[in-house]
């Protein structure tokens, strides 16, 4: 049943997503042309420069709009499918609550990852078109590989593989966390508000986000000095394993928060749902 739920969630979210993605790629080419105008050594007419500025602004706004549209597609699907009249059909399907939630979560993570991938492609396209001399400079690429990449491999050794795996896991967990966080805000907004549910959800998001940011800033204020002092005192040969351990602690922390958010979300869908 999860596969069937995913089929319809994907259909709904990606129905217009691919148009926005293609548009952002087209705008990346335009943005690349703007970069080439700005970095050109030739004296170009003012009209061309003004046009390049306008195109650059449109390209940046277009790429931003594409990211925003992905957010809108994912979370409007979550809201409409569960908390509007569509919920009368969704919640009476012969599926488990966890399958409903997992389908929405997987769709959100896939949409976010694909959007990130397209944005990366956009940047590469813009740089290829705008700065071909730098981007396709074999000498520059070779020196980057020698000076930076090989140096990292020499310093970290086997731990590089561990760092990459931990980074991947962290990436997935952060994706799960961001989706669950917004799902919870939407769910709480839908439960407590009779009208203006979306506005309530947005308000809850900003309050919760502000509290979270405040806590992080307190840590940064008092914790960073202590942590950096401690790190400075570590012996060089212990730095790699300790860094891997710190990343693991981060993974466990985010994993715990994700578990708590998932449990809260599941409980609200199971016990607190009241479609009017």
């Amino acid at each position: 049943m999860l596969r069937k739920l995913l089929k319809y969630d994907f259909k709904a979210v990606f129905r217009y997503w691919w148009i926005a993605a293609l548009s952002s790629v087209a705008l990346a080419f335009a943005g690349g042309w703007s970069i080439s105008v700005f970095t050109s050594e030739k004296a170009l007419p003012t009209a061309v420069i003004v046009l390049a500025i306008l195109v650059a602004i449109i390209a940046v706004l277009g790429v931003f709009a594409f990211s925003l549209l992905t957010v809108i597609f994912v979370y409007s699907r979550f809201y409409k499918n569960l908390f509007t009249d569509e919920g009368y059909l969704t919640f009476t399907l012969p599926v488990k609550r966890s399958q409903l939630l997992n389908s929405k979560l997987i769709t959100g993570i896939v949409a976010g990852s694909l959007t990130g991938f397209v944005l990366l492609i956009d940047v590469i396209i813009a740089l290829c078109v705008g700065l071909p001399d730098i981007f396709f400079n074999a000498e520059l690429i070779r020196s980057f590989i020698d000076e930076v990449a090989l140096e990292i491999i020499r310093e970290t050794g086997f731990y590089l593989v561990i760092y990459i795996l931990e980074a991947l896991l962290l990436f997935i967990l952060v994706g799960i966390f961001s989706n669950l966080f917004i799902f919870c805000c939407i769910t709480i907004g839908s439960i407590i508000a009779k009208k203006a549910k979306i506005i309530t959800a947005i308000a809850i998001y900003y309050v919760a986000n502000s509290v979270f940011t405040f806590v992080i800033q307190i840590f940064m204020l008092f914790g960073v000095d202590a942590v950096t002092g401690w790190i400075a005192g570590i012996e060089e040969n212990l730095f790699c394993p300790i860094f891997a351990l710190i990343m693991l602690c981060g993974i466990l922390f985010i994993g715990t928060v994700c578990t708590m958010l998932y449990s809260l979300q599941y409980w609200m869908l199971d016990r607190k749902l009241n479609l009017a």
Partner: protein
Amino acid sequence: MNILECKNICKSYKKNFPVLYNFNIEIPTGRIVGLLGPNGCGKSTLMKLISGLLQADSGEILISGNPVGEKSKALISYLPERTYFSSNMRVSELVDYFEDFYSDFDTQRAYKLLADLGIDPEASLKALSKGTKEKVQLILVMSRNARLYLLDEPIAGVDPAAREYILSTIVGNYNPDATIIITTHLITDVEQVLDDFVFLGFGGRILLAGNAEEARNESGKSLDELFKEVFRC
């Protein structure tokens, strides 16, 4: 065997204001039951509890011996009093949706009923009138070979000709071994198809219940007249 058993069901939306309080009922298989009562007496709440849209505060609901969950939802075909499908879909996509999730869905029957009404399966749901959307919804619900059909106000807000069509669709297309529970205010239209009736008062109290034909013969009154007598303001 009973298709539905509700034991000591309690449900309230606000503290000290129970919509259902110690509600008990047993409904056998193969019956068309009218659940009748004034606004706010708990009819729709009961439907939502049985279909799994709401959780009871206490008590137990069993559908063919199964508690409310994945298994019971596969046995129930629920028609709420509002349109519940995404307007971005076409009629044929909705048929595919039901076919995907419900193993008892009869696709041929659904397309036959759509053709009878002249509804184009490739039509967008956005383009259909309110009445046509309700008919599409009813067709999808009645195209399932479910064990229990829950129809919440199926004929409210439609014209008399459409009401007749809806009632004939209900009676003509349901699984005869199944049970249908209908809630409505339009008792005159519905009572001709009912086998049994339940008059539900506030707090979920059952004020009168029984066989519809027997009640009419004993009282010499129609169910509509009995209803007015029981619920006189």
